[in-house]
């Protein structure tokens, strides 16, 4: 599977909730950030959790979120603070 996004791409985490095991934290759902690194390709943990193969492997992205974008109305430090998380491709959509 080829990577949909490159480093520098602005992305938004999908807002859905799904039943069962998931590695996209709820506090990041619907939030917008920037890809800072493309890790390799990995199996889907949502399937691996139920003894399924979780194929095909898909890209995993290191995404940086500005603190104020994740926690509207809150401040941390001088405004530069950020949160980085590794998000699987199927949880991301392109953001203008």
């Amino acid at each position, binding site marked *: 599977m080829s990577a949909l996004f490159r480093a520098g791409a602005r992305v938004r985490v999908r807002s859905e*909730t799904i039943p*069962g*095991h*998931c590695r996209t*934290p*709820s*506090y*990041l759902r619907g939030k917008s950030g920037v890809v800072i690194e493309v890790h390799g390709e990995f199996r889907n*943990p949502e399937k*691996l*959790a*139920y*003894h399924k193969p*979780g194929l095909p492997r898909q890209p995993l992205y290191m995404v940086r979120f500005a603190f104020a974008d994740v*926690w509207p109305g809150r401040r941390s430090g001088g405004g530069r603070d950020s949160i980085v998380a590794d998000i699987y491709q199927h949880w991301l959509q392109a953001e203008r």
Partner: protein
Amino acid sequence: MAGVHDLGGRSAGPIDRAEHEPTLFDLRVDAMIRLLTHPSRAVFTVDAMRRSIESHTSEEYFGLTYYEKWLHAIRRLTIEQGAISEAELAAKLDRLRAAGSRESA
């Protein structure tokens, strides 16, 4: 709604920084998980272990110790995957309880 384990951003109290040496129980449970999830045996995946832990109620999740939750995952998943059976485990527990009460008699 976020699962019981999905804690990022919830309000919480001060951090207890006390250091705890792992007990023999902790080390054995940890070692069993590593062996069971090792690719050469692959009885279950780390993902399955997490899924099992995430299925605890809030009371269990915050009430059981860290390694007790891992132990419960071993129980559930080794049975789920047929490495042991419910009946075998029940019989083993009965024998251990009986042996234990004989020792203390």
